[in-house]
């Protein structure tokens, strides 16, 4: 029990801080705008409900609005994008994709290259304005998301993973 890793397998690509790719600064602004657009709608609807409805008690209704403002506008716009970018990095080797993401909880995921089933890149209207794209890495066990990559970088990473993932087929 508790045997050491095999020689040659000890290091993951992301163990070397110099090999970690981080997201561009404009990803923070992009996330802020996205969060704000959702937050304004949700908070607006709740405020309208709190002012117009008779149930539940007024104190409860306005507490709900306050919590929504705190969650969607303060945390979602001011705090989460910054923390998310600070924690996010990814690193590629010929055999693995190593990435860290999350904001409340910091999650490090290792995807063996030969597990990749297919890749999908996505770019919405707002993301296009910022020159950003999302890359979805699909495996049989679920999807890993590289969110807010520079669009050129996303294309490069997609090509590289596509090349590497085709080299082995093993589910």
């Amino acid at each position, binding site marked *: *029990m*508790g*045997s*050491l*890793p*095999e020689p*040659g*397998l*000890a*290091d*993951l690509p992301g163990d070397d801080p*110099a*090999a*970690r*790719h*981080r997201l*561009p600064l404009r990803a923070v602004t992009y996330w802020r705008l996205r969060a704000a657009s959702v937050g304004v709608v949700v908070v607006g609807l709740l405020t309208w409900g709190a002012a117009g409805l008779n149930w539940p008690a007024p104190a409860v209704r306005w507490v709900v609005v306050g919590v929504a403002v705190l969650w969607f506008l303060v945390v979602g716009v001011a705090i989460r994008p910054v923390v998310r970018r600070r924690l996010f990095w990814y*690193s*590629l*080797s*010929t*055999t*693995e994709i190593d990435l860290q993401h*999350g904001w*409340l*909880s*910091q*999650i*490090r*995921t*290792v*995807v*063996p*290259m*030969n*597990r990749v*089933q297919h890749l999908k890149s996505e770019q919405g209207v707002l993301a296009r304005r910022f020159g950003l794209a999302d890359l979805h890495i*699909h*495996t*049989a*066990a*679920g999807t*890993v998301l590289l969110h807010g990559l*520079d669009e*050129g*970088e996303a294309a*490069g990473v997609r090509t*590289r993973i596509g*090349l*590497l993932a085709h*080299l*082995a*087929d093993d*589910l």
Partner: protein
Amino acid sequence: MTSEPDAATRELPGGHHTGVDIAERRLHPAYLLISFGRSIRALIPVIAVGIWKAPGWAIGLLAGLVLLRSFAEWWMRKYSVVDGSLRVRSGLFKRTQDTIATRKITALEAERGVVQRLFGVWGLKVQTPGHDHRSAVRLACLSAPALAQLRAALRLPDDVATASMPGADPSGSGEITGPVTLAVLGTRTLLVAAVTGTSIPLIMAGAAATFGRAHDLLPQREFDRLTHEVFVGGPTTLLLLFGAVVLAVLAGIALTSLRLARFTLVRDGDRLRISRGLIAQRLGSIAVERVQAVRIVEGSWRRLLGYCALEVEAAGLSTSSDTDRMLFPLIKTDRVAELVASALPELGWRPALLTPVPAGARRRYFTLPVLFGAALTAGLVLLPGWGAYLALLPLPLALLVGWGQAVDAAWGIDGTTVTLRWRRVLARHTVIARRRRVQLTEVSRTPFQRRAGLSGIRLRLSARRYARLRHLAAPDASMLLHTVGRRRPSTTAASLPAPDPATYRGR
């Protein structure tokens, strides 16, 4: 319909096949009647509403259209095995063709219900990775010889591939061995499975819900009269309740028997074959090479009696149905190692003592149940009258669950397998995974865990199937992250140019 394999099949060096294994053919003509019956069944609500007023010619037209649709479906749906791929063509107006490489097939499951038994035909589900609970392709009506031929054609590349794998053959001779029956579910074990399974509680819950619904639907006076007549009090009421429990137990046994009777596990060369069912028969086949892990599930009652259930984890197997993943429904816990060794020697599992999580991590296992219990307590306190006393229950129960989760949390790793053991609420799960077959490895840390030097780990096996420990020492989690699911870089992969990390940094 062609019944003989096509002679055009050729074997290439390395065991790969090209050419036609099974020429294009239709399903058994019984499909016409079965499909017609299914369509009529789907139309029952429409028929029930319209049959009273519709003229005879309209009913005849409807029946004719349904029959025509069934015929068109049967006529257009053709399958073949060509160049190592199963091809299924279908559709009259919207033509579709499914092509599945045989090497991508993870499981084949043949099944037949009562109607299919009458016609002597089988349905076949072909499962591939990433298809979650839906089978990739379903062929509804195959005669027994056609089924045998199709199964033989679909397993061919796996046989060749597995025969060349070191350790594929338990005897080490490199030959594909014949079918060996490893375990058959006995009557006594079936009864234990029925009594300790979920059927009986579900039936009781259903009865209680029906009673509540009757209370809602019947007029109060009528309901009171009925309850006074049935529950007269004293021994008669007790006898009635006892009778209801006995009925629930008998119904549970009957349901479990229908599902699990004659459960047989067979090792047939590079495949595990599972057959089960009393009236509706099911024959499952899983490529051993595709098995990622074995899961031991010990429910609280079963654990007390020294029993557990065995499941297999393979990409493409149903994630929603325990029965589809079942390796053996109930077995004495002390026989698990023996059965796994004979069914899946390739797993290379050598049972050993697991490493418990450190004391600091054990304490954390109480947090979630206690928080949940506290929230439930707060809700129950608000209940009127004696109901408020129910608030005394959640916290002790939460402490008990937390204690169980803390005691059961453990892990282990050896040369070929990684083992995680954890408890959900009542049932204890132990997953023994092939180290290199784990699809994704995730290590998570909350700020609280970081301060205490702890982490959580999740090994993802297939869609929504995973093994996890919520808290363990951070260095252990890091070691598992660096070890599980990894393999040496291939020479071809290593020869690809690596991008300069600085390439994107300046943007």
